[in-house]
C-alpha cells in the first residue's frame, strides 16, 4: 500500500505537509468553519486570515461582487490586531488536526516585524506567510510587493526574527513579478505564494456607484487562472525555492497546470465558495493522475511543462 500509492506529501522549507494543497488566506477562516462541510483530513494546511498590528474593522460593505468566472473582494483586512489575536484566537488553534500557517499584513516594515515575530513565536503556528500584496487597503499596503527594494527590506527583516518557514506572497499587479520574486528569495524567503488577487472593480450601472464599498477590490477565481499560471511559470525560472501556486484552481487539471508550470504546492481559495468538497476532490484527482502515469510523487511533475519562452518567427532584418 505505502509502496504502491503515490505520495502527495510535500515539504515547503521546514514545513512538511501530507498534501500539496493549502487553503488560501482569508478564504477558509482557521478551517474550523468548514469542518461540517469539507474533509479536513484531506488538506495540506490552512493559511489563516491576515492579521495586522492594530485591530481593523475592515472596509465598508458590499465587500464582495461576483464577476464573470470570478469575484471581486475588498474585505480590508478586518482583524482584531495581533495582541488580541495572540490572546484570544491563536490558543484555539492548539491541537487542531491540521496545520495552520499565520498570515501577516502591515503598513510599515516595523508592522511586519512586530507581528511576524510574535506570531512566529507561537507553537500553534506552523509557518509564517507575509502578505505584502493585499490590494484592498487604501494605504501603502500593497507597495511592498510592487517594489523590489521594499520587498527585499521587509523579507530580510522578518527573516531575521524567526527560523520558521517564511512564505512571501506576491502580487500580480506589477510590471515584472520575476524581479520581485528574485529579491524575496535573495532576502531569505523559504517559499513564495504566487499570486494574490488582481486589482479590479465593478460599477452598478443602475445606481452609478462602484459595486464595492471600497470602490476597488481583488479579482480571484478561474478568470485569473491564466494570469496566475504565467506568474508561476515566470517566477519558477528565476528562483530555486518552492512556489505555492494559486489563482482560480477549481479542479485537478487546474492544479496540475500550476504544478507543471513550476509550483511545488497549490492553494485553493475561491473554489471553496463554489463547493467545499473541491479540495478533497483535487487530492484524490492528483493521486489518480500520478498513479495512472506510474509517478511516485508530486516532485516528478513540478515544472515539467516549463520550457522557457518562444521567439516569434521574423523576417530577416526584422528587429523584432
Amino acid at each position, binding site marked *: 500500500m505505502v509502496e504502491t500509492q503515490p505520495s502527495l506529501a510535500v515539504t515547503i522549507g521546514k514545513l512538511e505537509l501530507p498534501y500539496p494543497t493549502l487553503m488560501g488566506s482569508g478564504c477558509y477562516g482557521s478551517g474550523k*468553519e*468548514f469542518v*461540517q462541510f469539507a474533509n479536513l483530513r484531506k488538506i495540506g494546511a490552512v493559511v489563516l486570515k491576515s492579521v495586522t498590528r492594530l485591530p481593523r474593522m475592515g472596509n465598508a460593505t458590499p*465587500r464582495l461582487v461576483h464577476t464573470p468566472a470570478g*469575484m471581486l473582494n475588498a*474585505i480590508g483586512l478586518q482583524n*482584531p490586531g495581533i*495582541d488580541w489575536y495572540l490572546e*484570544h484566537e491563536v490558543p484555539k488553534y492548539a491541537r487542531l488536526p491540521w496545520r495552520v500557517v499565520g498570515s501577516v499584513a502591515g503598513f510599515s516594515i516595523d508592522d511586519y516585524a512586530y507581528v511576524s515575530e510574535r506570531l512566529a513565536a507561537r507553537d500553534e503556528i506552523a509557518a509564517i506567510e507575509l502578505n505584502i500584496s493585499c490590494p484592498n487597503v487604501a494605504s501603502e499596503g500593497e507597495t511592498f510587493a510592487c517594489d523590489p527594494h521594499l520587498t527585499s527590506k521587509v523579507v530580510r527583516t522578518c527573516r531575521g526574527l524567526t527560523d520558521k518557514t517564511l512564505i512571501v506572497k506576491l502580487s500580480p499587479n506589477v510590471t515584472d513579478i520575476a524581479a520581485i520574486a528574485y529579491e524575496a528569495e535573495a532576502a531569505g524567503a523559504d517559499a513564495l505564494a504566487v499570486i494574490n488577487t488582481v486589482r479590479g472593480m465593478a460599477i452598478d450601472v443602475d445606481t452609478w456607484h462602484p459595486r464595492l464599498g471600497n470602490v476597488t477590490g481583488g479579482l480571484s477565481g478561474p478568470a485569473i487562472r491564466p494570469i496566475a499560471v504565467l506568474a508561476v511559470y515566470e517566477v519558477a525560472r528565476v528562483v530555486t525555492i518552492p512556489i505555492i501556486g494559486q489563482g482560480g484552481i477549481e479542479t485537478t487539471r487546474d492544479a496540475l497546470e500550476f504544478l507543471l508550470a513550476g509550483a511545488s504546492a497549490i492553494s485553493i481559495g*475561491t473554489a471553496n465558495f463554489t463547493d467545499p468538497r473541491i479540495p478533497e476532490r483535487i487530492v484524490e484527482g492528483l493521486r489518480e493522475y500520478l498513479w495512472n502515469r506510474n509517478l511516485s510523487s508530486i516532485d516528478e511533475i513540478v515544472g515539467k511543462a516549463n520550457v522557457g519562452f518562444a521567439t516569434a518567427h521574423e523576417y530577416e532584418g526584422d528587429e523584432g
Partner: protein
Amino acid sequence: MTTLETPSRVHATLVTDRRELAPGVVLLGLDAPELAASTLPGQFVMAVPPSGEAAATALGVYEAEARRASLLFFVTGKRTRELSELHVGERLDLVGPLGNGFDLQSSPRRVAIVAGGVGIASVLLPAQALIRAGSRVTLLYGARTSSLLVEAERFADAGCEVALATDDGTAGYHGYVTDLLERSHNHDLILACGPSPMLRAVARVAAQIGVRAQLSLEETFACGVGGCWGCVVPIARTSAQAPSFPPEPAGGSDAVNARICKEGPVFWSDELRW
C-alpha cells in the same frame, strides 16, 4: 479537539417538483430528508451550481416537511438562472442548513411577519412553527406588483391572517407594506425578511410602535459559513450575537462587525448599527 467525521452538512438532493410561480419566480421541491429534518426556521443553504461554474448561491429554505425541502427564488442573474433550469429528477447539492434562524422562544401571542418580494422564501417555516406553538400570526406581504405576490394563499392555508400591499396598487394596499405594519396593533413580536430599504423601514416602525423586530438580512455571500468576513453588518457589542473583538482605543463606536452568514442572517433590529 475538533473531530473529523465525514462532512455532515453537504446534501446530494434530487429535484422532485418544479413550479414557475410567476415569470422569473421558481419553486424547486427537493428530496432532502436530512436537510428537511434539521433546518430551523430562518436558516438558509448554499446551493452548489450544477455546472460547477459559479459561486454557490445563498437561498432560504422555504418548506421543510418529511423528506421534502423546497427553495423559492427569483431569477436575478447567472446563478439563479442556472438553478431555474434544473429539471425534475436532476441533482442539486446543498450545503446547510446554515446560520441562526429566528428566535421564537419568547412564545409570543401575536406576531407580525413582514415579507417583501423574495423575502417570502424565508418566512413560511417560522410562520408554521409559531402557529403550531399557538401564536396568532399576521403576514404583511408586499411586492412591486400583484403577479409577484406569490404563495399568499399558502400562508392563509397555514393559518396566517394575510394582508397584501403592492407598489403599483394592483393588489391589496397601494403602497409600502411597512405602512400596514405602522397601522397594526398589539403585536408582541415582528419578524421581517426582504430588501434592505424595507428592513430599515421595519426597524424604524418597530421602534415607533415599541415592538421588537427580528430582521433577516441579505448581502452578497462568498463562503456562507463564516470563513471570509465578506458579509458583515455592524451590530451592538452588547448583542448576544456580537463576535468578540477588541474595543476601539478612544472608545469610539460601540459597534462591531458580525457576519450575516454566521452570526445572522437574523438580527434584532434594535441591535443593528447599520
